């Protein structure tokens, strides 16, 4: 156990006599907390996951990592104070960051860290009394939240003390406690809401979607906020002039600080102050009294496996009509093995959690990036854009080639799975050419994740530039197919979802660099030939033929090339 956990444990145990008088066995309490904190230390956190950092080494100092990340986030929140010079407005922005980030951290940690169903098998059968268990759980929650909140608050606190005074800092600290209570309530309510409308089994996948949403929003806000701040630096907005602010929770906490620090403020700030003081306590009361009991009971169902015995009455009559996916699969594949790979990959890529967690955020990043690109170039008007091809050229080419990254991430991920051991089924069945299944899988990924974007792009492009756009789009398309298939071919092709994703991060890095280089070369060549359409057409045909040859080579991959005894 590291120093920080020891410190928290010591601090918490200062109140041992109090726990003892509550009927808690303090020695057991200490043991339980020790073990829980030790386990926290070895568990990768949401921030790790969001960063897509691979745990090459076993996680041992997760706590320190979490705290450091929280501190960095806290530093980023300081940008709120650069916004104008109205403290209420600044604090409203600060608390918006604070609540948002705290919520996103808690949302993923709550299930895994705080409500551990294994308790039911490990702790409950032992001679430990209920009070000890309840208090241990509460204290554990408290420590966990402190570990996130304290480092996150330090930069803001330091700023307030430096800019105002010590009393201001004190008020700020109290304010943060209120905001934290409020956030916990928010998460609780959200969890309950989700649990109400879905089965516990689906719960995990919904949480993943929320996490992905948070990650993308975070990325977008880091991209967009500095830009807006840059534009509005000298504009002074007083948010408390707008009565709608009363409906924004972050404003309440700004109101609390303003009122308690200066003892003066307008009516709206006063309203915020009252809400900010009252609601967290009200929320806390509701959480403890009403939500927590049913919440724990419901959460404990999440990972229990006996759920499945509930029969699926509704599904029984599902007719055997061909689904759209099957029709699409028929179009794009030439034989049944390929089609099998296509359908399998299509289904698993929408259902497997680790695949979604890795690929979906990058779709979001790319969309944010694409939007940013057009905001940045907003000085070119549309008519200019249409008529002046030299200004439009780079943007068009970037739009065409941008989605290679998405394609690469999805294709790079398709061979990995947490359930890689289930790949025994490829090996025991008489599959003569595993290459057919691999090719089917790659095609599924291309159709599913790349086609929608390229079709949208085609529509937009033809609308803007007319038919002249088509040759360039076709060349860009085939070039990307060529690059995608050649990267599949040269970088250890494997059956879909058949190997464990822990090894070569170095290989991944090399692949990205290789991709960048290829794109740079291809894109530059394309740039110079952009308006010479016969050349573009010839190259497109050549590129298409090369792609076709390459798919054939992948189809012919033999067992010898992909053999892998890791199942």
């Amino acid at each position, binding site marked *: 156990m590291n120093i920080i956990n020891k410190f928290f444990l010591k601090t918490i145990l200062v109140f041992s006599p109090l726990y003892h008088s509550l009927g808690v066995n303090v020695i057991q309490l200490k043991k339980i907390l020790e073990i829980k904190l030790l386990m926290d230390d070895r568990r990768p956190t949401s921030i790790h996951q969001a960063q897509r950092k691979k745990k090459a080494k076993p996680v041992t100092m997760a706590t320190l990592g979490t705290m450091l990340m929280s501190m960095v986030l806290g530093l980023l929140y300081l940008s709120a104070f650069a916004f104008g010079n109205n403290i209420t407005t600044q604090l409203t922005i600060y608390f918006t960051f604070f609540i948002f980030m705290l919520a996103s951290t808690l949302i993923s940690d709550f299930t895994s860290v705080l409500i551990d169903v294994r308790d039911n098998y490990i702790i409950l059968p032992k001679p430990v009394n209920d009070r000890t268990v309840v208090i241990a759980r509460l204290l554990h929650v408290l420590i966990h939240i402190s570990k996130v909140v304290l480092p996150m608050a330090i930069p803001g606190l330091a700023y307030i003390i430096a800019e105002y005074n010590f009393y201001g800092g004190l008020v700020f600290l109290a304010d943060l406690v209120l905001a934290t209570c409020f956030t916990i309530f928010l998460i609780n309510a959200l969890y309950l809401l989700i649990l109400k409308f879905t089965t516990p*089994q689906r719960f995990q996948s919904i949480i993943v979607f929320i996490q992905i949403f948070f990650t993308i929003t975070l990325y977008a806000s880091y991209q967009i906020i500095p830009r807006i701040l840059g534009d509005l630096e000298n504009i002074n907005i007083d948010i408390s002039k707008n009565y709608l602010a009363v409906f924004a929770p972050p404003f309440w906490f700004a109101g609390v600080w303003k009122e308690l620090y200066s003892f003066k403020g307008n009516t709206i700030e006063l309203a915020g102050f009252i809400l900010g003081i009252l609601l967290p306590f009200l929320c806390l009361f509701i959480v403890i009294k009403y939500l927590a009991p049913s919440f724990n009971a419901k959460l404990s169902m999440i990972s229990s*496996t*006996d*759920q*499945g*015995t509930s*029969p*699926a*009455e509704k*599904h*029984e009559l*599902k007719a*055997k009509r061909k689904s759209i996916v099957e029709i699409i699969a028929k179009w794009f594949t030439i034989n*049944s*093995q390929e*089609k*099998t790979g296509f*359908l*399998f990959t299509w*289904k*698993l890529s929408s*259902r*497997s959690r680790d695949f979604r967690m890795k690929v979906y955020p990058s779709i979001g990043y790319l969309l944010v990036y694409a939007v940013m690109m057009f905001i940045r170039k907003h000085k070119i008007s549309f008519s200019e854009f249409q008529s002046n091809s030299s200004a439009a050229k780079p943007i068009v080419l970037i739009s065409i080639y941008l989605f290679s990254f998405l394609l690469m991430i999805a294709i790079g991920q398709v061979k990995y*799975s947490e*359930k890689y*051991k*289930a790949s*025994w*089924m*490829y*090996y*025991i*069945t*008489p*599959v*003569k050419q595993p290459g057919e299944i691999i090719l089917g899988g790659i095609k599924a990924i291309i159709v599913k994740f790349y086609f929608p974007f390229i079709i949208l792009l085609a529509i937009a492009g033809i609308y803007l530039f007319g038919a002249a756009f088509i040759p360039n789009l076709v060349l860009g398309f085939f070039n990307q197919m060529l690059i995608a298939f050649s990267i599949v071919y040269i970088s250890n092709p494997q059956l879909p*979802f058949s190997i464990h994703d822990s090894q070569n991060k170095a290989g991944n890095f090399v692949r990205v660099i290789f991709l960048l280089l290829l794109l740079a070369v291809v894109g530059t060549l394309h740039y110079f030939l952009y308006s010479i359409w016969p050349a573009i057409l010839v190259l497109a045909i050549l590129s298409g033929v090369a792609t076709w040859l390459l798919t054939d080579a992948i189809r012919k991959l033999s067992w010898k090339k992909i*053999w892998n*005894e890791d*199942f």
Partner: protein
Amino acid sequence: MEPVISINHLSKNYGSKNVLNDISFDVYPGQVLGYIGPNGAGKSTTVKILCGLISDYEGDVKVKGLDLKKDTSAVKAMIGYVPELAELYDVLTPAEFLGFMGALYSMDEDICEERITRMMAAFGMEANLHQRMDSFSKGMKQKVLLASGLLHNPEIIILDEPLSGLDANSVIIIKNLISKLAKEGKTIFYCSHMMDVVEKVSDRIILIDKGHVVADGSFEELKQQQGNKSLEQIFAGLTSDDSMNNAADELINAFSK
């Protein structure tokens, strides 16, 4: 009679570690072969070789006269394998998973679908046919795996601990199924640690230890050789050294000061 499986001087090394050491035996159609041995004896290595999962072995393995190394695909098509651990892509539904397996066996889609429905109905799981398997109990997953091993109507069925996680009713179904399949001329290769089950279902038992065959024969023959004991006692007598017999005593003694 022509043997279905013919293993001659089979050896397998992992580096310097010798897992299988010159194993030879023949299996005939309609036989239920109980293949037993202690942990690490080489059971699962044998099974993996038979299923075509391991190809770099020494010696000869023939299935219905076909060399496993040369005609791997043809051999795989004749074998149905039910793996020990319920490792499957559990975000799929049984219908999807089994359909996918059928496609890998190049089965006709309609036949495959009809069989899947009937087999799952026989297991009492028709209501779960379109439910994702991540919510299934171990026993339900095991039933899906069993169906996946029988789906293409194979000549040889390799079962690796097929009863794990099944309730008593399902165990009876599987035991009956095994004897019915054997009557139809199918060959069953049954690996298990549950000696009482092996004793009852198999008409021939092969006991391996440290990569060698140490006993081979029907349960009756083994009893004649080893004295009138249960299979469990025969197993212990052949594979454990004396230290094992004292283990229980030592465990009890751990309490004394």
